[in-house]
C-alpha cells in the first residue's frame, strides 16, 4: 500500500445532510485527488490539490468542495448529499504533476445516500 488511508470505509446518509470524507497520506506527496467510480462511467475526477490550500476542480465538481490545510490530509465535503452522489470515492496521490507520474490510490469509501 502507498500509505493512503480513507475514512470512513462505508457510510450511509440521508438526502440533504452534509458529509465529509477524509484522506490521509504518509508519503508526503504534493498532489492529492478525489475520484468517484460508478458503473458505466469509470473513474471521474472531482477535485485535486497541488499543495496546501491549493485546489482545483475536476470534471464532476458540482456539489462537492475540498480542503487541504496540511500536506497529509485532503477532505472532500458533500454540502447537501443527493442520491446521485451515491458512489465509491477514491483518494489518490502522486509525487509530481509532471507527465507520466502515476497515481496511487486508497481503498475507497462506499457512500450510500438514501
Amino acid at each position, binding site marked *: 500500500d502507498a500509505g*493512503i488511508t480513507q475514512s470512513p470505509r462505508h457510510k450511509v446518509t440521508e438526502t440533504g445532510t452534509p458529509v465529509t470524507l477524509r484522506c490521509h497520506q504518509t508519503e508526503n506527496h504534493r498532489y492529492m485527488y478525489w475520484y468517484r467510480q460508478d458503473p458505466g462511467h469509470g473513474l471521474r475526477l472531482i477535485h485535486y490539490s497541488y499543495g496546501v490550500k491549493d485546489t482545483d476542480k475536476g470534471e464532476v465538481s458540482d456539489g462537492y468542495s475540498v480542503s487541504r490545510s496540511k500536506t497529509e490530509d485532503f477532505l472532500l465535503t458533500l454540502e447537501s448529499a443527493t442520491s446521485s452522489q451515491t458512489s465509491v470515492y477514491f483518494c489518490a496521490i502522486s509525487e509530481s504533476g509532471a507527465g*507520466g507520474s502515476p497515481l496511487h*490510490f486508497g481503498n475507497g469509501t462506499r457512500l450510500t445516500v438514501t
Partner: protein
Amino acid sequence: EDQVTQSPEALRLQEGESSSLNCSYTVSGLRGLFWYRQDPGKGPEFLFTLYSAGEEKEKERLKATLTKKESFLHITAPKPEDSATYLCAVQGGAGNNRKLIWGLGTSLAVNP
C-alpha cells in the same frame, strides 16, 4: 475528443491460457499511458507507465506494449490470482495538465 476504449469488457481464461487485453486511445499529445489492476473492494493498483510507441514493460506474467493508437496488456500463463479488473488511462495535454482519461476496464477471470 480524447477517448479511451478497453476491450473486451470481460474475459474468462483457463489457468495457463495466455491472452491479451486491449486499450485503444485517442489523445492530443500523449504524455503517458497507465495500466492499473483493481481487485473487488480495493483501489486501483499501479502496474505500468508507457511513454512512447514501441515501449514495452514487464512484471511477472504481465507485459505491456504501446503503439501510436493502442496498448496491449499480455498475460502469459495466467493464474487464478491474476483475476481482477484491469484499467487503462492516458494522460495528454501540455504543461502540468493532470487530465487523465480512464477506460471502463476489462474484468478478467482465471479459472483453476
